[in-house]
């Protein structure tokens, strides 16, 4: 009896130590790949920093504040691109935010189940359409429509505002803002919907019990979800800032800073897309990589902010 037991013990021990090693091996292997992702991100940053050295040393911080971009004279400044990126992204946000909030409210509070699933699916597809298709559609459908219909209308109605007057080409800040808006609506609306869902139903019921209308109950939920919604918005902004192909195809690609939103402009991502493969020399290439570095820094800050905002809301609500 005693002997038998002892034997069993030994066997168990053997199994344990054996599995211990394979378990450890398995954990460390997966860890290795997890660390590989961290390493990759740092490598990307290092590579961009290293490859932009020539440009950074030549122009210093003046790179961001100078509007001059003349590859022939080897003069490089990124201000016009920063301007194009910022303005087109903000236009996109101004259009996308209200629409996305409407969709989020519709999806989380109003729609019956069948419509909810169908609409969510359609919005998912909208998010998955390649940006090249948006750009192509922008060139041949949206830009002529902007030139012939929207811009003349805006000028006659709001022409006293300098944003809405000027030459009507169809390609420019406003058009790229609209294309970007269509592209970021899915991300803002789906995250806002998810955030709204984490707001406890009891709060709405309490509001109804106090005699609130449906909208008032929803408004309360929206207010409670505001930091999460802000996070979704900022995430959408990050997407807009980094978007390349669609913008390249409709923004007009002219390095200038004009107040009018009808005017062509240029964005950071677009200049990289257009000039990188045919860069005229080492300094030109280095300057383009520095534009990329600036773009990276901007999107990094924007996305980190967004993630923190979203984490904080969903965590707070689910803990409760």
């Amino acid at each position, binding site marked *: 009896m005693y002997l038998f037991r002892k034997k069993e013990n030994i066997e168990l021990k053997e*199994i344990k130590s054996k*599995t211990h090693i394979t378990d450890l091996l*398995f954990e460390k292997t*997966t*860890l*290795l*790949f*997890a660390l590989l*992702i*961290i390493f990759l*991100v740092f*490598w*990307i940053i290092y590579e961009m920093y*290293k490859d932009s050295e020539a440009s950074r040393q030549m122009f210093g911080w003046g790179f961001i504040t100078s509007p001059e971009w003349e590859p022939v004279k080897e003069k490089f400044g990124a201000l016009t691109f920063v301007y194009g990126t910022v303005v087109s992204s903000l236009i996109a946000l101004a259009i996308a935010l209200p629409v996305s*909030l*409407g*969709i989020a409210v*519709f999806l989380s509070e109003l*729609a019956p189940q069948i419509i909810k699933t169908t609409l969510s699916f*359609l*919005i998912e597809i*909208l998010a*998955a*359409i*390649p*940006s*090249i*298709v948006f*750009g192509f*559609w922008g060139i*041949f*459908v949206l830009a002529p429509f902007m030139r012939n219909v929207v811009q003349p209308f805006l000028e006659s109605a709001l022409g006293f505002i300098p944003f809405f007057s000027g030459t009507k080409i169809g390609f420019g800040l406003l058009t790229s803002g609209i294309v970007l808006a269509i592209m970021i609506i*899915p991300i803002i609306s789906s995250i806002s919907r998810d955030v709204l869902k984490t707001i406890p139903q009891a709060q709405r019921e309490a509001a109804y*019990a*106090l*005699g*609130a*209308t449906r*909208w*008032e109950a*929803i408004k309360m939920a929206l207010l409670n979800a505001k930091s999460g919604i802000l996070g979704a918005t900022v995430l959408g902004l*990050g997407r807009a*800032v*980094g*978007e*390349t*192909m669609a913008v390249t*195809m409709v923004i007009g690609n002219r390095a200038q800073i004009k107040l009018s939103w009808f005017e062509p402009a240029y964005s950071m*991502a677009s200049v990289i*897309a257009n000039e*990188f*493969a045919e860069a005229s020399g080492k300094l030109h290439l280095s300057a383009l*990589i520095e534009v*990329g570095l600036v*773009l*990276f820094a901007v*999107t*990094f800050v924007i996305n980190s902010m*967004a*993630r923190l905002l979203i984490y904080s809301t969903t965590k707070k609500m689910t803990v409760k």
Partner: protein
Amino acid sequence: MEAAELLGNSGNLKRRKVINIIMLTLSVISALAAIIPLVYIFFYTAAAGISSINLDFFTELPKPVGEPGGGIANAIIGSIEIVGIGAAFGIPVGLLAGIYVAEYSKTMVANLVKFVTDVLSGIPSIIVGIFAYGVIVLQSKNFSAFAGGFALGILMIPTVTRMTEEMLKLVPLSLREASLALGIPRWKTTLRIVLRTASGGIITGILLAIARAAGETAPLLFTSFGNSFWAESLDSPTASLPVQIFNYAISPYEEWHNKAWAGAFVLITLVFVISLIVRIITKNKFHQSV
């Protein structure tokens, strides 16, 4: 107190009801507004592209301007090669990292990886293109399918990691405990039980990553570049569907525009089909877990 106050003031109530109706209507309208561009883009692309789609489109090389016919077979095969290289690199990394984050989620590294994955998913794809250019194209001195695939692989990682993590976390803890109680070691439990249970969802993530990568243009512009002919090897410039669409779209030739529309239609159809498959898989998943 407040309720009585609100109900007592009927003029106010009317105004509140009107606001209620206006806001709810606006919500419905915005939902409709989001569908319009989708439907418009889909049908416009279909209408403009379908006439150029025939067998030649999938089997022939591009013809010079002026010559009728021809296709973009090289771009389609090129895309498959580049996305394949990307998948071979991106999916294992994403999958294993996802397993780590989900199964060892209490460690600090797991949280850090989660954050860095989010950062990676937010990096504009063109920057990943610059990176691949610096690391591969500059070293090997020529554009190649490898460089393009490397860039796409990096772009696939966050999607795969995130989906893996989320799907593994859906697998009930009791299943793991049951397996461990039977004396099955942890690594085997993870691979054979947990991963298998979550496989539908993980395949979904992989499909999504592939669909997204197949449509990426920006990172390929100066990595795999482009080619009007068949690529000599994986180590030489290779045409890809999105880049070909881009080059055709910005050209002044109507014939090429038609080809580009056809290419865009192929891309959209691909995305649509994959999304549909994903939907069906995840729906079954959902029913199972309920």
